[in-house]
């Protein structure tokens, strides 16, 4: 069984979408507000632990590990394309670094953002060194338009009414995971932090040291690529 399949077999299907549901409504999504609020609340409750961590308290590190390890592991695993062994090592590096360099955390951003930054940097560094990553050209899976600005392939087919249960199927999730893994590393990190983890654009910008505008550009491009991949999977044109 491949690493991706191993991962897919243990990830749970989120019954409630983490981002506002897609459906018949075309109204703007008040997206990520709950996730952001949850992150903020979690961060506030960690304040005491962070102070103890700065003082070298091992128990504080263990508590912070219990609070944050699952989400950080998921981020590492997604960025590393499902390589569980590498993700474990990333988590080891992250919490060792957090323990040794806790005093460097100034509180200018949320502690969770700092941990996300350590995780993404460690995962991206590991990817660069391994040279396993193979990017694909986005162009084939992006929407295309005529010179007058209208859709090149018409009609644009609505495959969004595919039953939600379908997304729980191993095949589709494996396809999505594979497509995600074909994104450029930073684009992938943006999509994972946004659409899988529910971070705000501002938090992602702080995590990846990008401008908010750059985050939006990368997020949109990544989503368009994934949309194209899904469209083709369902038998339609990516355009």
């Amino acid at each position, binding site marked *: 069984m491949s690493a991706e399949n191993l991962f897919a077999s243990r990830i749970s299907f989120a019954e409630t979408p983490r981002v506002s549901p897609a459906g018949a409504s075309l109204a703007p999504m008040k997206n990520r507000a709950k996730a952001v609020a949850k992150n903020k609340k979690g961060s506030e409750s960690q304040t005491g632990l962070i102070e103890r961590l700065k003082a070298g308290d091992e128990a504080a590190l*263990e508590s912070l590990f219990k609070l944050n390890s699952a989400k950080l592991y998921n981020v590492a695993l997604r960025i590393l394309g499902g390589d569980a062994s590498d993700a474990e090592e990333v988590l080891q590096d992250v919490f*060792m670094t957090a323990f040794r360099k806790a005093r460097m955390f100034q509180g200018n951003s949320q502690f969770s953002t700092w941990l996300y930054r350590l995780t993404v940097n460690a995962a991206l560094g590991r990817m660069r060194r391994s040279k396993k990553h193979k990017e694909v050209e986005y162009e084939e899976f992006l929407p295309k338009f005529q010179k007058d600005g209208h859709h090149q392939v018409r009609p644009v087919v609505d495959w969004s009414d595919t039953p939600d249960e379908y997304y729980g199927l191993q095949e589709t999730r494996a396809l999505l995971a594979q497509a995600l893994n074909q994104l450029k590393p930073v684009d992938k990190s943006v999509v994972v932090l946004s659409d899988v983890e529910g971070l705000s654009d501002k938090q992602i910008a702080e995590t990846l040291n990008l401008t908010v505008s750059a985050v939006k550009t990368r997020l949109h491009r990544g989503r368009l690529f994934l949309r194209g991949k899904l469209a083709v999977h369902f038998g339609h044109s990516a355009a």
Partner: protein
Amino acid sequence: MAQRITKTKHLTNKTCKQIAALVLAYLNDELSPRRKRDFQQHLKICPDCVNFLKTYKKTIQATGTLYADDMPSKVRDNIWQFIRSKMRA
């Protein structure tokens, strides 16, 4: 079809390409009232963009299902044991 294209351009001042570029800002509710009105007006007469928007949103939702709300306890234990051994070394 050509007639509909002309009608769309005339009635909305936005092309499908422009609409596609504004989708993220629309879903984040970040468009100015005027742009939002233009966006929604375009949707009223352009089924292609309606379907584009629906599938864009579905993509976000589907990506969200890759969330893992737990990690295997064995993995968690292994990582913590390693960290603790390093700290005490």
